[in-house]
């Protein structure tokens, strides 16, 4: 690993000049264009933008699920762009949690087993107790033996949140966690997400369409056509800054 580049102590996540190009029938398509950003430890940021702006693409790169065409990414002190697929996976195992729009619970596993899965993958002992505790935190311990198809959308997402936090991740990535939920359920889920984020001092990267929701984060990044257009402070504040400032 390149130690000369790890001058970013204190930042949980940092990206430099990220670009992503894909080949399509119409030729090479740039879906992410020279994006830089930095997220401090314990900070929450929201990425907002129109559909097709490149939000999920950026999230996938930051989480190491995909590789950029150009640019570098650090997760904590580790440069994930210098790692191979398995290296990135190992890094994710110890540092990263996910919450998705479509929940992604495994239908053949019960709620408890879904929460246990990341612990088991990490080889943690007493996975069942930890998972049960996590389910208790999201208020679903009595439903632990239920299968996903026996749970409502909001309940499923709460199980997913328990699953994300059970490994005590450094960074939590959430891609439209309320996209499939009605407004009230969405709010309950989001309250839970922020509460656990605060309690565990996790860094949160949240992709959403919902500007109200975005405003609850410390910072909001606005994306358009593969670029970060502008940035505001969250918590219903409103100081704008340029992406260049944000990256420094």
């Amino acid at each position: 690993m390149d130690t000369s580049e790890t001058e970013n102590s204190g930042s949980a996540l940092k990206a430099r000049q990220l670009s992503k190009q894909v080949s399509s029938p119409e030729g090479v398509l740039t879906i992410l264009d020279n994006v830089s950003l930095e997220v401090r430890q314990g900070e929450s940021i929201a990425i907002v933008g129109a559909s097709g702006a490149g939000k999920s693409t950026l999230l996938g790169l930051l989480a190491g699920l995909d590789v950029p065409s150009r640019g570098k990414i650090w997760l904590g002190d580790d440069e994930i762009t210098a790692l191979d697929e398995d290296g990135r996976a190992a890094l994710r195992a110890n540092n990263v949690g996910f919450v998705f729009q479509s929940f992604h619970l495994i239908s053949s596993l019960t709620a408890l087993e879904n929460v246990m899965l990341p612990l088991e993958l990490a080889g943690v002992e007493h996975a069942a107790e930890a998972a049960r505790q996590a389910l208790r935190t999201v208020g679903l311990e009595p439903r632990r033996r239920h299968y996903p198809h026996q749970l409502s959308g909001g309940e499923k997402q709460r199980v997913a949140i328990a699953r994300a936090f059970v490994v005590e991740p450094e960074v939590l990535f959430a891609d439209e966690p309320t996209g499939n939920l009605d407004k009230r359920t969405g709010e309950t889920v989001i309250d839970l997400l922020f509460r656990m984020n605060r309690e565990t001092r996790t860094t949160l990267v949240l992709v959403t369409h919902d500007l109200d929701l975005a405003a609850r984060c410390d910072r909001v990044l606005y994306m358009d056509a593969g670029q970060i257009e502008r940035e505001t402070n969250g918590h219903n504040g409103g100081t704008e800054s340029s992406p260049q400032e944000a990256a420094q």
Partner: protein
Amino acid sequence: MKTDARTTVWLAVKLLARDWRAGELTVLVTALLVAVTALTGVAFLTDRVGQAVEMRAAESLAADLRLSSNQPIDPDYAGLAARSGLETARVTSMPSVVFSGEANTLAAVRAVTAGYPLRGYLKTSNRLLSDVTQTDEVPGPGEAWASTRLMARLGVDTGAALEVGGAQLTLTRVLDFRPDEGWSFVDLAPTLLINDADLESTQLIQPGSRVSHQLLFAGSRSAVDRLKPLLQEQLKDSENLRDIGDTSPQIRSSMDRSGRFLNLASLVSVLLAAVAVAMAARRYSHRHRDRIALMKCMGASQRLIFRSSLLQLLMLALAGGVIGAFFGYLSQWGLAWLMRDFIGQALPAPGLQPVVLGLVTALSIMGGFALPDLAQMGKTPPLRVLRQDLDPPPLRYGISWLAGVAAVLGLLLWIMRDTRLVLSIFAGASATFVALGAAGWLLVKSLRGFRGAAGIAWRYGLANLSRRGKESVAQIVAFGLGLMVLLLLSTVRTQLMDTWRQSLPENAPNQFLINIQPHEVDAMAAFLAERQIEAPAFVPLVRARMTAINGEDVTQMTFEDPQGERWARRDSNLSWTSTLQADNRVVGGEFWQPEFIGSEVSVEQDFGQELGLSLGDSVAFDIAGENVTATVTSFRTVEWDSFSPNFFMVFSPGVLEPFPATYITSLYVEESGRDAVLDLMRNFPSVTAIDLDAVLSQVRDVMDKAALAVQAVFIFTLLAGVTVLWAAVQATRDERRYESAMLRTFGASKKRVLGGAATEFVAIGLLAGLLASAGATLAGYLLATRLFELDYTVSVTLWLAGPLAGMLFVGVSGMAATWRVITHAPVSVLRTA
């Protein structure tokens, strides 16, 4: 993260257990179990049936080994046998006139020791024409048991006093059957069975008298195998050792056929089950892509995922292998129970071998048919969690199928050790697969034309069928294959079995007449015609001794096959003919034209192989001191179980005619026409009649029991066929559930959705059924003519049953699969994880 071995194992075990509980593995495991059970069950059974048939064959020797000599047999042999843990019994036989008062007749007197027969049973009755029972006893000292024929000739019943040589004996029982009745030349006169203890008092053993001494051995197979070479080492020139391998080719021929049926049944089961495994594995891997992506997202490495998949597969294979072998073992007991009369004596308990076989089978099937899909599943990119359309790179079907084919082919070759059978069946199966695929594709294409024809349900159903083009073809092939096997089983099998049984018809010849002098042939033909006994063919027979092959002295030659050596040292029976007999088939070279005159010889295939003969070789014989040479111009196979006179070596006209020949023929004589045979023997005193009824009934028995076993084994094939159908329904179940729910959400009525699904399934069933009928007809024809050398008749039922069964079965099971979706609220389906 810790990707140590423990994590991998732990993960694999847990995920597997959870999948099992959620019913994700049911089809896969069932298919695997069917394959393993079929294979191990048949392996067990062939072994046991083989042993049972051998035992039957042993009965015709009344022993496992039979040593005969015209000199008294060295008692050392019996000692040797006793030390090896074998039982022995002595039989001494000689012709003698038996007196009862004024009446007398020639009998074959057989003095036996206790224990005779060592294999099989004597059957006796207390009086003439009274009930016949099986017995373990032999006549006690002072007693004699006589065959019905002998008693008829003497005009006595039990209780009569008999005089045999110098001994006075009491006739105590009617001897209705002895297992070694056979047709050896000593046994032409009716039998009188006496106790060995009385032998001396008969004073029949005199220098120069024609006495045959025999020592019978029986015991465990391993003991027999140990003793045989020891005996062979010490054998004197006058002594001759026979084992069950030398017994009637008729029984062996029946055994071969049943062995082929059994192998065929298990082979087809394994192939079918492998197809079901492949289909189930595909579905499993499709359903688990999300899970793999998610696990990667949570930090599972490619290696961890691959290893845990591999481990799961291994565990499944291991469990499938062991449990399947256990089922195979159980089913084999069931089969053995079915055949309890036939197997009779207890057989050695089966060893661990079938478990090994089961494991190897499970591993090859899983490795060949499930591994490629599971390995591919592991390559699902983690980004799939964000982009649902991201699939693993497409599987190279060529490679994956090659793996499966290689695995199963290797396995079958290893088990069956019959390259020709395995390869030809395999080629047939592959051709069937391709043909079904091509035909299915054409049918699906041609359906497009019918779309406008009727109502919405019809249109929706057919539209679905052609939209899912590839899947529809796959389903038609799977259904077609399953149905085809079922049809083949239900119709063609019975046909084949019947034809097989008919190859030994009710009126198969049961009397052999030998020693007919050339000048008697015409008179005898007239005699038989007069009594309405079907005028038979008289076949000439010349005794000869082989002297040279290709000019090389046979006494100096070494033969690869020990049997060949025996043939070369023995007197041969030669015959000649201008035309090939109906029960013979030329398999190499060319048979001469009817008008041909020259020195050619046609050789029975196995016999030729044992002697190491090839086409163009010259064989020389010594006939009555003269040398005769002929060229091998063709090889034949012979249906030994037709019971017509047949010869290993048949010459063309123009060689053997000058030599002294006798003629032989075979007749079918009804039970009531037995006096005609006696009449015949009175008119032609030099002619010898040999009664084949005993051998015939033995062969019939073997056939019946083997047929029963084969039918039982076909149950596995049936199960495998059903599994394929099941896997095919399961394969598109998720998609269908989802679609029906969507349609209903958009406002389609239950009836309409049901109608659409019904149309689609019934159409698939119809197409699959048509293909199945065609396939079954073709397969039945090929099997009958090529493999079993039987005639085949096309069946109309089969052509009706295929499409009907297809529509019904596929329609019903397809409807059952979608029924719940349609009757339940659509929302329960649309609610995904």
